[in-house]
């Protein structure tokens, strides 16, 4: 099994980098292979909204930069773990950029599912999504919005499992570690 850790933290050496190291060790310990991408060090332009990844070069973004490799790693992975500061209840711009640039991994075609229109899958693989948000201060409403966003993404990307957690920088590490273990278990990683 394979996991991709996508780190959308804005600065080096912060809390989310510790979370990333912790998760990598936990996943490796459970027999998973991992890839890691630190998005603030990637060369990645924002999506141009051209849909070239659907109708010009299907499955590949027309912009040749690091987003192509991130999209490839997403397809290779059974589990995508996103790490991001919670920004107004959503993702950091760096993390969001990687997601925006990955829509070539789904098909342009529409299907109806549970009363809503979504895109059909390009790849037949099962795919799980875990969102990990970080707040400077505890804000339950904001954390709730973050979880709703992850659930929305999971629905539109047709993930077979999805979960989210919001950590608070001032929380003791033991609390965060327990929460990460719970999330990995929810994702089917035996830790």
């Amino acid at each position: 099994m394979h996991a991709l850790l996508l780190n959308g933290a804005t600065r080096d050496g912060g809390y989310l980098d510790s979370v990333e190291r912790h998760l990598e060790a936990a996943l490796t310990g459970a027999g998973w292979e991992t890839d890691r991408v630190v998005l603030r060090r990637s060369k990645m332009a924002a999506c141009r909204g051209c849909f070239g990844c659907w109708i010009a070069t299907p499955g590949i973004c027309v912009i040749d930069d690091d987003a192509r490799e991130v999209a490839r790693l997403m397809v290779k992975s059974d589990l995508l773990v996103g790490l991001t500061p919670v920004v107004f209840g959503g993702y950091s711009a760096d993390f969001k950029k990687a997601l925006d640039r990955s829509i070539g991994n789904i098909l342009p075609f529409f299907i109806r599912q549970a009363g809503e229109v979504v895109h059909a899958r390009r790849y037949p693989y099962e795919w799980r999504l875990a969102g990990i948000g970080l707040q400077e201060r505890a804000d339950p409403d904001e954390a709730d919005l973050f979880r709703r966003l992850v659930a929305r993404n999971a629905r539109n990307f047709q993930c077979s499992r999805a979960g989210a957690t919001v950590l608070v920088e001032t929380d003791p590490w033991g609390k965060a570690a327990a929460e990460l273990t719970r999330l990995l278990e929810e994702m089917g990683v035996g830790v």
Partner: protein
Amino acid sequence: MSRPRSALLLVGSPRGARSTSASLGGYLLERLAGQGVTASARFVEDLPSAATQDHGLPAAARAADLLIASFPLYVDALPAPVTRAMEAIAAGRLQDRATGGRRDFVAMVNCGFPEAQQAEVALAICRRFAAAAGFCWLGGLAMGLGGTLGGRPLGQGDGRFGHVEEGLDLAAAALARGEAVPERAVRLLARPIVPPARFVAMGNRYWSAKAAARGIQDRLRDRPYQR
């Protein structure tokens, strides 16, 4: 209620002036201008965070009495550069706290899917931005099937968009008075232009035709990153 004297539209689509975001925002801006509000528009660019801070956009956004963000829904939320711009605008709050005065914010999202409620999380994010940046939240409008408008201007007599224009007229009238967008405007914008069931077949034909025009219809389902 304080009436805004100036309004700034931020167009958050990378398609710029050819976007549906610009069509919707531009129409609202015209209506505001018609009610005596000094109106201007800027496009959100893809800039690194330091450059976003130095760029004139955050200061301009904070200088307007009414800030309008119009953007496409990207992966259930705001396009990345819009988040970046909002962070820069919110960061400016500390610098100009002394100047005080009320600032209003309204958000407009258009999405590709027929259901405008798919933009609900994005609007909730906008509302939190408003609170964090010291703006008074005057509400959010969401429109489904933004692609049907396809960046063409509103107000050209196309009956399919009559309810969108009516909703924006109502919103502009309220905003010009310093009031929140009325519920009826929200409902009008959210009204499906094509029923979802019909849209699926229509949309799928659209993508096939687009690919056929490029001679790649048999490559649409390619799996370049197949494991």
